[in-house]
């Protein structure tokens, strides 16, 4: 038997409803999946961005703010800690490496981050994708997404706020330019899929010097990032530490939580953020679940009504000799087909929504979200489709069991 002619006719008979049902189902599904996919992507991206930040030391205050500012480069004023700490940490046998992170200046809206050449290459893990790392105080290395060419010369401006579009110099930025300070761009980092892709990395010595604090060294010609031996070492907003072992990490974290500093693992802050995100996600998943159930029930009710209006058609088919299984299949496949189309559209729409939301988040935070549909999302759609398929049996069985004679009249 081939019920497709009747399925096709029924769909034509439904007219706009045949489009509306899959669209409504698609929107309901897309909301559920987008929430889940976005949450997963946000966790993956934020955890990956914090990979090179084992331990952070900053001024006492908000742990979350220190992580957001140092790891995700979300510009906020934070307190400074004694720059001399850098030497103490580099001398500490439990520390494999330590680097300052200093921010506050911008170039065309891109944050300028002062650090050491060692941290630019993430202690040897990275190589510039183009050019080289900085070796002079007036040199800079840009992130993968910074729209500045190698060889360009730029002037940094003081201030956190940036009113123009990224890549353009705003009026306020221009008004706060550091006179006589320039950076020559000598290298570009590979893509890290983190906010650092939008940053301009410069020697910490330059940041201090531009702000009239000296360069942290006893002599001007000292190699960049070498031991800071000036009589007075300027302060820094944060120091990132690579401990030699897990035990060392915990000891350092404990030790630098007193005496005017705050030490933390970015991961512990992320876990706390994830917990809050998880609560929000849980609430949204519950709401979305109810939403999906309601949409399914409403859809099946609508299909049941439509089948009720067409019962004479099915009775005629029986009178012409159609087996009961034929009309059951025609109604069930038609209804399930609409739901399946809605599920497929929902998957596509959820990807589109997730990519759109991901692009917005990336534009705002620099964090690249790896949006992908996992097995859990596909299983979610599979369960919905199976539930919809079962519910679609209701109108099909309604037709299957209905006596033919009365329906023909």
């Amino acid at each position, binding site marked *: *038997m*081939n*019920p*497709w*002619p*009747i399925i*096709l*006719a*029924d769909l*034509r*008979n439904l007219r706009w409803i045949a489009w509306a049902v899959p669209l409504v189902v698609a929107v309901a599904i897309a909301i559920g999946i987008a929430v889940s996919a976005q949450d997963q992507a946000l966790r993956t991206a934020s955890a990956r961005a914090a990979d090179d930040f084992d331990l952070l030391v900053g001024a006492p205050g908000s742990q979350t703010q220190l992580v957001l500012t140092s790891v995700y480069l979300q510009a906020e004023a934070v307190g400074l800690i004694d720059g001399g700490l850098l030497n103490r940490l580099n001398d500490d046998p439990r520390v494999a490496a330590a680097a300052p992170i200093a921010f506050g200046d911008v170039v065309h809206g891109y944050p300028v981050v002062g650090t050491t050449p060692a941290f630019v290459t993430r202690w040897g893990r990275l190589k510039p994708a183009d050019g080289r790392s900085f070796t002079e105080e007036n040199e800079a290395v840009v992130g993968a997404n910074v729209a500045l060419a190698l060889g360009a010369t730029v002037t940094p401006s003081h201030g956190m706020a940036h009113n123009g579009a990224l890549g353009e110099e705003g009026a306020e930025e221009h008004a706060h330019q550091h006179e006589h300070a320039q950076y020559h761009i000598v290298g570009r980092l590979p893509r890290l899929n983190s906010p650092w892709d939008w940053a301009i990395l410069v020697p910490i010595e330059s940041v201090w010097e531009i702000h009239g604090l000296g360069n942290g060294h006893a002599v001007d010609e000292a190699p960049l990032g070498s031991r800071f031996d000036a009589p007075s070492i300027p302060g820094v907003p944060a120091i990132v530490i690579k401990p030699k072992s897990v035990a060392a990490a915990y000891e350092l974290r404990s030790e630098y939580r007193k005496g005017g500093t705050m030490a933390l693992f970015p991961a512990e802050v992320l876990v706390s953020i994830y917990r809050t995100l998880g609560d929000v996600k849980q609430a949204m998943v519950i709401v979305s679940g109810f939403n999906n159930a309601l949409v399914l029930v409403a859809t099946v009710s609508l299909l049941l009504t439509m089948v009720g209006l067409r019962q*004479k*058609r099915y*009775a*005629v*088919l*029986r*009178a*012409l*000799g*159609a*087996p*009961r299984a*034929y009309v059951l299949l025609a109604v069930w496949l038609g209804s399930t087909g609409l739901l399946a189309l809605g599920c497929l559209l929902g998957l596509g729409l959820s990807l589109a929504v997730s990519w759109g939301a991901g692009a917005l988040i990336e534009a705002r935070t620099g964090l690249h979200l790896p949006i992908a549909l996992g097995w859990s999302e596909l299983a979610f759609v599979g369960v919905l489709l199976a539930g919809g398929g079962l519910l679609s049996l209701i109108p099909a069985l309604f037709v299957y069991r209905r*006596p*033919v*004679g009365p329906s*023909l*009249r």
Partner: protein
Amino acid sequence: MPLSAAANAHLSSPALIRIENLNVQIAENGGQSILDIPAMTIGEGECLGIAGPSGAGKTTLLHVLAGLSPCQGTIRWGSRDLSALSERNRDRWRRDNVGFIFQDFALVPELSVLSNILLPISFDHWRIPAQHRAEAAALASAMALPELSRRAQWLSRGEQQRVAVARALLRQPKLILADEPTASLDKDSGLAVIELLLTGARQTGATLIAVSHDRRFLDRLDRVVHFDQGRIVDSRGDLS
């Protein structure tokens, strides 16, 4: 002579259908009988008219004969007792032996002329055999139907009923049941459908049972049985 005996007296051909003690009751009306036929025989190749006022049980008789409504009593198809068949076997029997024509045509308006004619074939086949396609096209041509790809909803009423007749005749059924086939048509279209039905039935040797109020139609049938309140009140032979 009792009327039930008169309903059988005409037969000159072998019996195709024998009805014995047929009774149809409706539960909603306190179990009142709406059709009560002690005995009736319909011959092979006979063209039988069923007439009577509204509510006389004419359409119910067609539904019962097609196995679409439950009933008490016996309906024999040759040597087979149709009322003893399972639902599945009754569907199969109907598919193989019965062509149905309705007053309101009962086409699927969203399908083409050809798809409507071939619809009963899709009950058995996933892909319509070429032979059936050719037969459907020949029937459509014989019935002067417009292009085969045209949707049924765009046809005139007369054309729609001709499609319905073609659909009923396609499988060359042994029994054609027609419920008021000319009632919704103008005079010319009605005459054309009468001609097509009678020609189709006689060419294939099918038995035609037609419920009708149309004298032009009834006058051309072999026999007309009149019903009133579910009972046979008159039966006579060729009225011509």
